[in-house]
């Protein structure tokens, strides 16, 4: 498994899929919501991320539907994907805690961050 930290789009896609299986456009919208409107994935970027996550075994196709004569594919987290997302979340939490702790020392008046 790749030990490199996940990039933001990949992390957000995994986070979106943690809420359940989603199709491509629903993923774009959910990632936009999760990132407070900061990350709007382009189509090429989204499918690049999905391909890499599938190759790494972190997600898989859940089901396919035909809507208006067009294929719509739903993606879901695999067990490995759930583990990876948990590990990545823990890594980010540790980093955030460390940063918050240092900031509290710098700006004690601000209280808890």
């Amino acid at each position, binding site marked *: 498994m*790749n030990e*490199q930290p996940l990039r933001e789009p990949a992390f957000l896609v995994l986070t979106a899929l943690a809420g359940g299986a989603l*199709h*491509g*456009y629903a993923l*774009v919208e959910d990632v936009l919501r999760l990132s407070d409107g900061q990350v709007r994935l*382009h*189509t*090429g*970027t*989204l*499918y*690049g991320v999905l*391909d*890499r996550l599938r190759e790494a075994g972190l997600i898989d196709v859940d089901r396919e539907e035909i*809507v*208006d004569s*067009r*294929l*719509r*594919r739903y993606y879901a987290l695999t067990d490995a994907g759930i583990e990876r997302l948990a590990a990545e979340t823990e890594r980010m939490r540790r980093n955030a805690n460390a940063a918050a702790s240092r900031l509290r020392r710098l700006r004690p008046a601000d209280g808890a961050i």
Partner: protein
Amino acid sequence: MRRRRDTPRTDGGARREPAAEAAAAEALERRYRWLLGWYPHVYRAANADDMLGVALARSASGQRWPEPGEAVNLIVSGIGERLGGILPRPDQQDTASVLAIAGPVLLAAIAGRTIAGRFMFTPAIIAFVTPHRIVVTGIAFAAWWALVALAGMLGWRRAAAAGACLGLAGQVVMLVLAVAGYSGPLMVSYWQAVVALVAAVSALGSLRGQGRPLSWRAIAALTAAAAILAGWPAVEVAFVTYTPITANSGTISDPLGGIAGWLNDGLFAATLILAAAAIAALRPAVRRRAAVLLLPAFVTTALVCWGFRGFLPGGLPLGLLMLSPLQWQDLVLVPVIGVVACFIGLRLYERRLRRREAEKAG
């Protein structure tokens, strides 16, 4: 501001759209299909419908043309997917990432030499030797390629690929100007365009790679080698013997005088040692591939440099008309042979690697 659709445009036509909107939707879909044509056939067969649904759902009601950002993203991703098919193994993609950094570093260094070259001459003849526009172009290209290299080093592959493609376009313009005799030496422009092409193709081929491709040790060695290459003329000027030409025309550097000979050799050796150190700092699988690719490149460069120096001792040609048939061969045939040798060498190496893996698995 145009309102985006809340749901994908795949709702089965539950409501009747006005004729104009239907025509716009049809035009938009046709254009998106054309953009998806940049992807390989196999990929398209598997994903085009799904991707088209997403792209159309992202669009606004009545929109006829894809957004520029979305269009560029699909084209770059499609090319990346095509090249990714050529380089399916992570080691190959990492090798391409290394070339996608080494190329821009080299181009930044060459462009930097143009600026450093000003120090080779005294102010009296500086305007003749390096006109102002050439220095400005040199600064612009040095800065651009340095940024592309930095993006590659940080693992920002899409930014590096887009930058390399734009840089290639700029180098091609410079080559055209050189052919017309309006820009710097033809051979330099030609090689810059060739290196930019290799960098752009490598950057696109490495789009599917992950993480930072170079260690900090390799980056430090590569940057130091580039700095020597770029600053060479400026260092040289401190040691070179100057020979007066006439009383009024100032002086010109004499590259063969004094200690310039061993200084050149020393700087050349230092550059090579640092480049070798950068290659040595790569992962073994990437290092071997980089060595297989770079060896013919070094031989080709040496052949071309020696060939031109021998055929035209008075300096580099400034336009196509000044090239002799032998120089034409040198300019065209040697690089072609070099590139073919690179690919044959790499294919043989990959085949040997696969055979070894099969033997191990068996």
